[in-house]
């Protein structure tokens, strides 16, 4: 791939709202520190029904997001290495390794080391590793772990599974209540759920704006701007950020301003990005290759308010049982085919992430199925989201170049 150009001629356009994003990230970090100092901080997994701890006045942080920041700082191998020094395998998820490594040696992490938790909230709707990972953090910090168990769904959620998850959410409320001596107020959870829903709807509208040609956002833009909807949904400032963000996206659409300067090829990205090499997208941008859609940022489109349920707990059960990674392979293939159709994409790149078995399992089969159903070609590249030691740029370049030669 060609070299990046000097900044004045960069093939991609920086979002104005990135400045606001940095302010939100800083604010979020400071609030988490304060919550930890006050004995109120929860670490939560990315698919956790965060509205409940927020409504019960806990501060929340996401170790996966910290892992992404560690990856982006290109210190993944070093920080994962501290977990490996403790005996954890290199095959373990690099979000887990970077989390354990940075908990072991927080002073080695310039940005991304999380404040000490008082409670660890894991939901296995994204993977089964989270429980063991949080167990390890629990051993290191003394914070208790709560697991919300959400059995995987194949097509439809079975009634007894729904009831089981429902009971799990009730237990969660009881658990937080007993740990922090507080109750969940109905008014408060309704307010938080409503804010969460507003943020999610704004996020969805930004994603859907990418159906336009040229797309107002590229992959890297969405990977960065997804941070608040992952970590702060259910708060006022999250809604404020997305209002500003959507306004900028709509302005771009109105003026036909693309995220990249000369969009020629539109691709789908599947899986978590290589946080250590986000320039992958910018280098391709210089060749006119953009990614108007991806499965990762579309995973945060579950919308709590408005589901056809009787209570807020039912809504939590409905929304968080049906996250992308908790559904079967058919649902994943359907989603990819739908995105290719709706966003008028020419091909797709599947990133097989060694760390994330739950996301990557089945890609060989789904690649075939997606091509069969949509008629567009795809390629599988291998690597890792945080640990750049298993990311071979030359091999990836050959595979992606070959795909582009088929398209251009």
């Amino acid at each position, binding site marked *: 791939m060609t070299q990046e150009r000097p900044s004045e001629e960069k093939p991609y356009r920086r979002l104005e709202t990135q400045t606001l994003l940095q302010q939100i990230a800083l604010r979020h970090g400071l609030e988490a520190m304060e919550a930890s100092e006050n004995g109120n901080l929860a670490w939560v997994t990315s698919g956790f029904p965060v509205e409940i701890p927020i409504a019960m006045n806990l501060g929340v942080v996401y170790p996966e997001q910290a892992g992404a920041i560690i990856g982006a700082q290109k210190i993944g191998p070093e920080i994962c290495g501290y977990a490996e020094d403790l005996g954890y395998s290199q095959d373990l998820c690099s979000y887990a390794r970077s989390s354990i490594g940075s908990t072991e040696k927080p002073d080695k992490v310039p940005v991304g080391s999380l404040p000490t938790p008082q409670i660890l909230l894991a939901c296995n709707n994204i993977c089964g590793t989270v429980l063991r990972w949080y167990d390890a953090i629990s051993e290191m910090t003394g914070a208790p772990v709560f697991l919300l168990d959400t059995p995987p769904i194949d097509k439809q959620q079975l009634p007894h599974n729904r009831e089981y998850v429902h009971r799990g959410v009730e237990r969660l409320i009881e658990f937080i209540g007993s740990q922090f001596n507080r109750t969940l107020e109905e008014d408060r959870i309704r307010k938080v759920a409503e804010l969460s829903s507003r943020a999610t709807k704004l996020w969805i509208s930004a994603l859907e704006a990418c159906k336009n040609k040229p797309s107002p956002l590229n992959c890297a833009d969405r990977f960065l701007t997804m941070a608040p909807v992952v970590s702060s949904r259910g708060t006022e400032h999250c809604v404020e950020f997305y209002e500003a963000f959507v306004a900028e996206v709509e302005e771009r659409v109105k003026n036909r301003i693309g995220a990249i300067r000369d969009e020629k090829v539109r691709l789908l990205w599947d899986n978590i990005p290589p946080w250590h090499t986000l320039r992958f997208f910018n280098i391709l941008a210089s060749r006119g290759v953009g990614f108007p859609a991806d499965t990762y940022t579309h995973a945060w489109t579950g919308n709590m308010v408005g589901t056809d349920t009787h209570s807020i707990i039912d809504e939590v059960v409905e929304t968080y049982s049906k996250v992308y990674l908790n559904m079967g392979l058919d649902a994943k293939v359907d989603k990819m085919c739908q995105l290719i159709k709706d966003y008028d994409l020419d091909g797709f790149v599947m990133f097989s992430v060694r760390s994330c078995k739950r996301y990557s399992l089945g890609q060989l089969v789904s690649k075939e199925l997606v091509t069969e159903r949509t008629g567009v070609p795809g390629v599988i590249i*291998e690597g890792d989201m945080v640990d750049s030691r298993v990311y071979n740029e030359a091999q990836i370049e050959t595979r992606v170049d070959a795909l582009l*030669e088929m398209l251009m």
Partner: protein
Amino acid sequence: MGVGIDVGSTTTKGVLLDSSGNIIAKSLMLTGASAVQAVEKTLHNISSSSNIDLNGVPMISTGYGRARVELAEKSVTEITCHSVGVHYINPDIRLLIDVGGQDSKVIRVGSSGRPEDFELNDKCSAGTGRFLEVMARVLDVSIDELGPLALQSKTPCSISSTCTVFAESEVIGHIGAGKSAADIAAGVHISMVSKISALSKRVGVKEPVCVTGGVALNPAFKHHLSNQLGVELWVPDEPQLTGALGAAVIALEKKGEM
């Protein structure tokens, strides 16, 4: 005219085509430690054997060292070049299996000669020419002798296909257990072929099937692959040159001479 240069991990190949598309010069040499020097030497070989000054002749580079060819107008992946090269020699071919020193690739060739789908080996050398090189060294035979030796076997040894390093330990174990070199060599080929066969089935075995790359010259590899896939395999006369040939064809196309 058009020049194609294929800088592979083991060998560097070059082909010069005249404006009618006939091969008028070719070169094949070990890449060695410096890809830049291998490219210089290859260009020199082509130029001196054809007596043609290559200045101004359109040139396309391919292979892992493709970026090292400064004179090339453009670099194109080996996937496209092999597909175009094989199509140029035999337009009927629909599946191409190329086994090189460092990687193996399976390409579904479209009727236009362009790739329609492809798969490459993963980050392991177990399905590549390097696997055979390592095993030949352990068995103390040359790489050219390994295939004919394997064909003498009646009871091939079982050798796993997950990892070159582990397989090497297995081979040493078989030597220690007194197994014949022929049986071990046959086991080595079957193990390697099982990787390539799985890769081929992922793309879909559509006949006629062609095998290229240095390993295509190995009779035991061809025999066992044909058995495992259940199809006849076609091998061009110079299977190592297909990538460079494809690059040269693309160079000619670019110039509008074809």
